[in-house]
């Protein structure tokens, strides 16, 4: 296959996309002095229109995306999102309204935000939401800032945050950025929080625990209520990473499990495509105890009128301009209203069913470290393939040959050689079967002809890349 040249390499002096007609009016030279002219950009590519179109079309065709096939990247929830929700977010009234417009003129927009808050309260069992955080990691940080604000008002922000070793990788960073030291809590043999380890570490210096539920093993923390009680009994608060909420909707509610603060990923669970760099939304839901500290502005309603409340003296302040990524909220509301309560429950049931179908179909071929039942994702490892010298990376690269996006690799760290697989609810049985077939073929190849895996991918646009060299000596820009 011919390597696609960079657009700089296609460039040839003098080529351009279009030509202006000859000037047929007198030239106004004085204009040139009034308009600041940009200095010419050195090495700016000079290309024709057809070259630009073909270059970017070819690049887009080498890409793999969820519109093309299954994307079972564990922890990421790469599901298909209905296109109609994009259309709804593009309705003119939404995209032309200005955030500085008077609340009286923006009643529809404010209604969207308030209604979404109300339905998410119902889904999660929390008391109030902010839509400002732009993504999950910012949601985590905001959640921890709320907890810190609450603790400070009680007189002592405390020093530590407890995080299980099966939590999302961003949790420790969020706690750290919020000024807390992190203590890791071990998982027990079932892959859930070890309550004894928790009790031993929970004391008056601990501000909170951050629990990912279901955790990164896909296991539901069935003792989360007990864990919450341990933390609450010593005056701590419970933060839940709700990025995996697509496994729980309509079945159980974090608010009933002792959770004081939670973030959701609207761009994972509620119909905004992601993986392309955003925009997303990581709204944070809280119980009454943390509501006074929520970011401003808050959207409220009184006598059928929606209004903006900036008068929240204990608020941690703004964390995003205006009301967060508003159009993501529009998509989430459209998605939730079109599915209704039964539909949301079915989403979660199907996510869990699909993951378990894959787990059951592959458990003989791929090792499962934890035998505990899992929900929306499951973590295989390369243990059975190791004896043939095959690692998870070889399996992942071979999947590319077979036209499937690989699962998440080498995470969570508590499973060596992990292949963390999350099919999501949007895959049909036929698509799941083709993934399973590909994985079975690879298990067979590992036994019969491991060389084909070690040198994969064979059919892709580029062969195996030297990831180490790329990380050690990154080239971040083109140079002539």
């Amino acid at each position, binding site marked *: 296959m011919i390597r696609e040249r960079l657009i700089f390499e296609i460039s040839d002096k003098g080529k351009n996309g279009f030509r202006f007609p000859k000037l047929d009016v007198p030239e106004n030279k004085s204009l040139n002095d009034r308009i600041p002219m940009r200095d010419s950009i050195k090495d700016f590519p000079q290309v024709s229109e057809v070259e630009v179109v073909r270059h970017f079309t070819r690049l887009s065709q080498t890409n793999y995306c969820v519109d093309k096939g299954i994307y079972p990247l564990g922890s990421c929830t790469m599901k298909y999102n209905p296109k109609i929700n994009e259309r709804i977010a593009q309705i003119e009234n939404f995209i032309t309204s200005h955030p500085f417009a008077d609340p009286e003129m923006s009643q529809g927009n404010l209604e969207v935000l308030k209604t979404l808050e109300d339905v998410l309260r119902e889904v999660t069992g929390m008391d109030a939401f902010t839509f400002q955080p732009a993504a999950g990691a910012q949601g985590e940080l905001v959640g921890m800032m709320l907890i810190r604000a609450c603790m400070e008002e009680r007189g002592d922000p405390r020093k530590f945050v407890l995080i299980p070793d099966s939590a999302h990788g961003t949790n420790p960073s969020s706690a750290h950025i919020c000024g807390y030291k992190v203590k890791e809590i071990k998982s027990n043999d079932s892959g859930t929080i070890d309550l004894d380890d928790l009790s031993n570490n929970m004391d008056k210096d601990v501000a909170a625990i951050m629990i990912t539920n279901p955790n990164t093993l896909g296991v539901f923390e069935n003792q989360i209520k007990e864990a919450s009680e341990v933390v609450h009994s010593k005056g701590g608060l419970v933060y839940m990473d709700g990025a995996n909420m697509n496994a729980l909707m309509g079945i159980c509610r974090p608010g009933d499990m002792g959770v004081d603060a939670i973030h959701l990923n609207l761009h994972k669970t509620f119909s905004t495509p992601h993986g392309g760099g955003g925009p997303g939304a990581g709204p944070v839901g809280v119980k009454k105890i943390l509501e006074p500290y929520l970011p401003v502005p808050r959207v409220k309603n009184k006598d059928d009128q929606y209004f903006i409340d900036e008068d929240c003296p204990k608020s941690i302040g703004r964390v995003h301009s205006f009301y967060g990524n508003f159009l993501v909220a529009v998509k989430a509301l459209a998605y939730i209203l079109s599915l209704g309560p039964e539909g949301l429950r079915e989403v979660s049931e199907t996510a869990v069913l699909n993951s378990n179908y894959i787990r059951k179909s592959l458990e003989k071929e791929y090792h499962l470290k934890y035998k505990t039942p899992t929900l929306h994702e499951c973590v295989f490892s390369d243990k059975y393939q190791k004896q043939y010298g095959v690692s998870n990376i070889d399996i992942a690269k071979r999947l590319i040959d077979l036209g499937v996006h690989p699962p998440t690799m080498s*995470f969570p760290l508590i499973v060596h050689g992990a292949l963390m697989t999350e099919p999501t609810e949007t895959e049909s049985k036929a698509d799941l079967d083709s993934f399973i077939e590909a994985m079975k073929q690879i298990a067979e190849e590992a036994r019969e002809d491991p060389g084909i895996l070690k040198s994969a991918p064979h059919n892709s646009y580029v062969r195996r890349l030297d990831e180490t060299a790329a990380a050690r000596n990154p080239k971040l820009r083109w140079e002539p």
Partner: protein
Amino acid sequence: MYPEDFRYTKDHEWVKIEGDTASVGITDFAQSQLGDVVFVELPEIGEELKSHQTLGVVESVKAVSDIYSPISGEVTEVNEGLNDVPEILNQDPHSKGWIIKLKIKDKSELDELMSASEYEKYLEGLKDEE
């Protein structure tokens, strides 16, 4: 494989004692699990470390992991070479891949660490667990 005169931690660091000074690094097992190391974050010289405290971070193509100080002491030297050639950690973890040197504060802490044979036994146990 694992030098007899070193002491080892459950988190796969090693300590080598030379008088009042201790060199600290990560074990061959640790580097093999991490895969190709691409970056090592080192502490400042003069920093006072307690045992179990994070002394630095090692980043590989697979993961980012904290390195814990096996014993308490003051950092007297760091292996600057790791800044340019982090792969020494993979190639020679027990010698040229040392990470820091410490002025030992309390020699009795060494008693809590494992000998080479105890560490090898510990690794065997981990294999069974997987």
